[in-house]
Each structure stands twice: as structure tokens, then as C-alpha cells.
């Protein structure tokens, strides 16, 4: 394993040191592992807090700032943050209008955010939650942990964050956040596994001509292994899975996401195929993101996330945002 780290034990802390040094618009509490907007709490504004395991950068810390999150809690690599950390973030961004937790649907994230919500409530902070579960590779069932939360977290944070920035009450911010999640779907493909610093070797082995279909964002294997093939066909597999679950039509917000190790050139090749697929279905890529937004350390591959837009969602997506990873209009 060759990684640009100092010590396996200080990876998260050293990352936060870098974030603090690179982004003076953020206030980074390195000891408690929280990234705050510098001006938090904003009186009268609903606070947005998200968090999850580290290793998905820029999610979530890269989305802290004007028009998006007020704080992010990075856990250890691929491990959810702990309740104390989330409570501290929640009380730290509470401007009196309540706080929204944006939680990706993983057992660990759900449990730790639930505990934190109860503890925050004890401290007099009103907390509501939007659960993100957009990954169509996982068949939903009452008897399982349900779908994973992946790329739609970026959409929820941006759109709910814009509404909160405009001064909407917590109930409205929750409503729009849930609507974004309900209208979003994702599917991921890996060409290689990722290597966590602690494990020091890839989490699974793929042969030279093998790929994993339906992967999550934690280096866990996907649902099936298949033979590698050209980008056009891989995109068709991903888009068919999305379209089967929620037929694509009309104006669509589309993200082609790298998993951390994929050259941008290849992501554009993928995007061209995604745009062509949408056209075939009578849909348009009305708003677009291409790049590394929800990563899995050094994994090679891509994921596609779509969201069926409404006028309201489009307007909120277009609203000004100023964070390390997304910025426009300001």
C-alpha cells in the first residue's frame, strides 16, 4: 500500500488539519471532528447537519457553507460518527429554528444519529431527519436494512440547504429534503476495490477483466460480478436499473460521480453515454454534475444519480451556494 499519509491512526485528524488550512470559510473543530460554517449558528435559520464515515470526500465536509450544510461530522474511515460528535454539531448550529439531520441509510449512521437526536432533544434543540436511500442496487425489503444512501445525499444537502438559507421553517426544509430523496435514484459500478489505510490491501479482489455491479460506497462488494465491457454498455446497465425503478422522463438532475480513483476524462465519456440514454427516454439532463462528489477512497468506477426535477427543485438547485466542493451564483 502506498498512500500519502503520516500515520494510519491520524488519517482523519490530518485530513481535518488540511481542510482547516485550505478553507478559511470553515471553522474546523479538530479535536471533536466537526466542520462548521464559520458564521454558524445563524439566528432564525434552520441548521443542516450531516455526517458519515470518512473516505467519501468531498462528502460531507466539502458541502459545508452558504446555501448547503452548517456542519459535518466525519467519522473514522467508513464508520459513522459518534453521538457526542453529532450532538455537539447540532447544538453548535442551532439558531433557534431547529436542525435537520441528513442521514444516509446505513445501520450505523441511523443508530448514531437517532441517539444524537434524542440527546439534542434533551438539550432543547428540535431535530428532524431526512433519510437518504437512493441506491437501486439494493432491493428494498421490510426484512433488511433497506436501500443505501449514496449520491442523492449531495442533492438533498444542496436543495434543502437552499431552502433553509431562504429562511424556510424546519417542516418545509424536511418536506423538500424528502421529496428530493423520493425523486432520486443511484447505481454504481466498480472497476477496482478500494484500500482502507487500516486494512492496507483492497477490500475485495477483481480480476483483470472483472467488474462489480451495484456497489456501495464503502468498498463493500456489489450484488454481482460481471465481465468488463465498454463504457456505453456499463452506462446502459446502470441506467436500466434506475429506469426500471423510477422511469426517467422530463427535466432531470444528473450526477456522474467518480469513486475517487477514476480519471475525469473517463467520467466525461460516461456522461456522454448517460446524456444519450436520457435523450432516448425522452428525458433531458437539465442540471448536471460531473466529478468526484461521493467517493470511496481510491476506488475506480462511477455511479450515476438522477433526480426528477420540479420547478421548485430546479430553482433551489440553481440558488447560490458557496462551499469547498460546490459554488455558484454568489
Amino acid at each position, binding site marked *: 500500500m502506498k498512500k500519502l499519509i503520516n500515520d494510519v491512526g491520524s488519517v482523519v485528524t490530518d485530513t481535518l488539519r488540511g481542510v482547516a488550512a485550505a478553507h478559511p470559510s470553515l471553522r474546523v473543530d479538530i479535536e471533536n471532528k466537526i466542520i462548521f460554517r464559520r458564521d454558524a449558528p445563524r439566528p432564525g435559520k434552520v441548521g443542516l447537519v450531516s455526517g458519515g*464515515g470518512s473516505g467519501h470526500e468531498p462528502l460531507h465536509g466539502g458541502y459545508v457553507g452558504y446555501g448547503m450544510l452548517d456542519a459535518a461530522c466525519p*467519522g*473514522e*474511515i*467508513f*464508520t*459513522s*460518527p*459518534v*453521538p*457526542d460528535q453529532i450532538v455537539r454539531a447540532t447544538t453548535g448550529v442551532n439558531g433557534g429554528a431547529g436542525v435537520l439531520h441528513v442521514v444516509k441509510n*446505513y*445501520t*450505523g449512521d441511523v*443508530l*448514531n444519529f437517532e*441517539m444524537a437526536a434524542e440527546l439534542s432533544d434533551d438539550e432543547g434543540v428540535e431535530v428532524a431527519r431526512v433519510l437518504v436511500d437512493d441506491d437501486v*442496487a*439494493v*432491493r428494498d425489503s421490510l*426484512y*433488511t*436494512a433497506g436501500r*443505501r444512501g449514496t449520491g442523492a445525499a449531495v442533492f438533498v444537502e444542496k436543495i434543502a440547504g437552499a431552502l433553509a438559507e431562504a429562511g424556510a421553517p424546519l417542516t418545509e426544509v424536511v418536506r423538500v429534503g424528502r421529496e428530493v430523496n423520493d425523486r432520486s435514484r443511484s447505481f454504481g459500478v466498480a472497476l477496482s476495490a478500494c484500500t*482502507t489505510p*487500516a*486494512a492496507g490491501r483492497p*477490500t*475485495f479482489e477483481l480480476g483483470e477483466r472483472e467488474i462489480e455491479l451495484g456497489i*456501495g460506497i*464503502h*468498498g*463493500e*462488494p456489489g*450484488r*454481482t460480478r460481471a465481465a468488463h465491457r465498454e463504457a456505453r454498455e456499463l452506462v446502459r446497465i446502470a441506467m436500466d436499473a434506475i429506469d426500471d425503478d423510477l422511469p426517467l422522463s422530463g427535466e432531470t438532475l444528473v450526477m456522474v460521480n467518480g469513486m475517487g480513483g477514476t480519471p475525469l476524462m473517463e467520467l466525461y465519456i460516461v456522461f456522454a453515454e448517460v446524456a444519450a440514454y436520457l435523450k432516448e427516454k425522452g428525458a433531458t439532463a437539465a442540471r448536471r454534475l460531473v466529478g468526484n462528489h461521493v467517493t470511496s477512497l481510491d476506488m475506480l468506477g462511477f455511479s450515476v444519480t438522477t433526480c426528477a426535477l420540479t420547478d421548485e427543485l430546479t430553482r433551489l438547485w440553481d440558488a447560490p451556494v458557496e462551499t469547498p466542493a460546490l459554488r455558484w451564483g454568489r
Partner: protein
Amino acid sequence: MDTRFFVIWMEEITAAVRAGRDHLTRLDAAIGDADHGTNLDRGFAAVAEALAARPPDTPGGVLVLAGSTLIRKVGGASGPLYGTAFRDMGKALGDAADVSAAELASALEAGLAGVRRLGGAEEGDKTMVDALAPAARAMARTVDAGGDPEEAFAAAAAAAEEGAKATVPLVARKGRASYLGARSAGHEDPGAASTALIVGALRAVATRRSPRSESRP
């Protein structure tokens, strides 16, 4: 069993988790995200520190402090789940200064109930419940049949180990392994494996003659 017994149990767990860390992480790499061993190792190291810094004066106090520390330090699913298990066990023991095997057996049932309530898993879902439930049953059965603590803990440890091994062919229905569907079969569940280590540590405390132990359990 007095307070000292429970402190030694925690020390045994810390040592067992440290020794089994890489094995647990490898099990987790197969069907999860390759961090179970490192997370628990970090958690129980913190438990050891907390017990040294603020030594509780009852068995229940030891377990509640251990549980709270795991919830605060581990993260993931295993932090809240193991944390709740130990906290609920500790609360079941109340303020008693000395605990009988029967009381510990019903505390273990309380811990199991806490895990089920929080995680929603049942036996057969390929989770820690598959080791913890048979362990609790075996301990209660042995105590009811008049067995001494040593026999009760040995039965519980054997049942937990058997339960963990029996997760191999199961298809996961809870936790991160559930995303793999049928591909989760053929691997031992890391949570069940760590539960077997934790219950196994109880057997180790009861059978070892510790020079630091003031009273035999």
C-alpha cells in the same frame, strides 16, 4: 461475582479483541467494510481507560460505564449495539455489590433485548444476535439446572461460538452485509464472531486464577 470480576472481564475482552482484531477485520472485509476489528479495538481500549480513570464501585456500574464508552467512542453499528447491550446489562444488575450467576444470566437476557430493540434483528439474520441469543439461553439453562458460574459461562461461551460458526451459510438480512444478498452466504458474521470473543472472555475470567483478583468468582 464482585466489581473486580467485571473489571477483569472487561480487561479480558480488551485483550481478546486486540488479539482478534485483524481476524475480525478480515471477516468484515469479506461481507462488510473492513473495520470491525479496528473499531472494537479502539472502543475497548477506551473502556479500559475509562475504567482506570473513574473506577465504578458496583458490577452494574462497570457495565454501564463500558457501554456508555462504547457508544461514545466506536461509531458504526457496533458502537451503539454493544454499548446498549452492556448498558442494559448494567442497569439490570442495579446497585448490587455482588452478583449471582442467575442474576448475570438475566442481565445477559436484558442486554440481548436491548440489542434486538435497537437493531431489530432476530436470530437467523446473520448478526451478533445469532451468537448472543444462544449464549443467553445456555447460561440460563445451566444456572437453572444448578450449574456453578464456571459451568454456566463455559456453556454460554460454547453456545456463542457455535452460534457464530452457524452464521456462515446464512444470508444476511440486517446490517451492511445484507446489501450483498445471497453473496453474503459462505462467510462468518463478524458481529457474531466478536460476540463469541466477548462471551468467551467471561469463561476465561471464571477459569483463570488472576493474581490481581482479590476474590475467586
